[in-house]
């Protein structure tokens, strides 16, 4: 189904030059990834949601106001590391979460409870929040265990609907 990577995509990310093909689905140890340019940075961190930011699916951003669409915007994937603006890297699109996920509950402060469906927040860049009514089509992940301190730990969330 996908091209196999021989090393962890987290370690292959954050390069100044493009090293991998855009568009293609990549596989590494039970999870799937895509590759893009990370632009319009609001200081990236591991576990940030990223959304599409150009018309040809080669660039993403963690800045919801710079992403395509009306907030909450559709999520393209989850950032694997602290990317430098306009550098290239992988983001996760399917499988059990391989990195922590930056997320909180609907009130903006509480931890996410187990079983909650998540969309991209339209207040804090890179952050996910629990889905509200009419946002069902924007769900990109499910929390399988409760989060803590603004993050859901790796292995405690699952991608949904991004491929």
């Amino acid at each position, binding site marked *: 189904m*996908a091209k196999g990577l021989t090393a962890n995509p987290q370690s292959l990310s954050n390069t100044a030059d493009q090293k991998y093909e855009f568009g293609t*689905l990549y596989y590494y140890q039970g999870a799937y990834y895509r590759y893009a340019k990370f632009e319009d940075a609001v200081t990236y961190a591991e576990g940030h949601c990223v959304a*599409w930011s150009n018309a040809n*699916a080669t660039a993403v951003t963690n800045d919801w106001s710079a992403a395509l*669409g009306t907030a909450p915007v*559709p999520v393209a994937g989850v950032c694997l590391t602290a990317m430098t603006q306009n550098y290239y890297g992988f983001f996760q699109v399917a499988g059990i979460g391989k990195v922590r996920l930056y997320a909180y509950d609907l009130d903006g402060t509480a931890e996410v409870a187990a079983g909650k469906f998540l969309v991209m927040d339209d207040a804090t860049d890179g952050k996910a929040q629990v889905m509200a009514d*009419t946002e069902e089509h924007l769900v990109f992940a499910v929390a399988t265990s409760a989060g803590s301190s603004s993050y859901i730990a790796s292995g405690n969330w699952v991608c949904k609907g*991004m*491929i």
Partner: protein
Amino acid sequence: MATPLIEDPTGVDDVSPRYEIGGLYEYQDPTYGQVLLRYYLCTSTAAAGTGDVCQYVAANATAVTPDRDETGFVALSCGGVAVGSSVTTGQYGFYQVAGIGMVALRSDGGVAAGDTCVMHSADDECDTTAAGQEHATLAVALADDGADSVAAGSWVCRGLL
């Protein structure tokens, strides 16, 4: 999970099935990278053209149609986007279900960049997701559509696998 496809799927319009009907295939598009396709029977009263948004026919996940009026169609249940220039009624072809859009996606003329899309009530087309249709999302548009389509490479499949 998917069988590699060597043949260019855009030219497939088979009188008799040459692939597993309903099967999942991976194809390396020279422009848009790796995509996933399914192989279906086209049952519509009109051929499925490039980029047509096709829905499953009732009780049979091996056949699709771009015709919204066809008897027995399953409302809002998209089976994929036709990639062949023409899949004749009663014949077999490929339909994209994952990856960057390798053909122009037929739309109603009102889709904007960043919109999620569902099947439109008009034949062949998709439309912007409306309240109550969220479960049926099939793609994300990355550019505004023109009169009747979102350009190839400017949309991404969503939720068809």
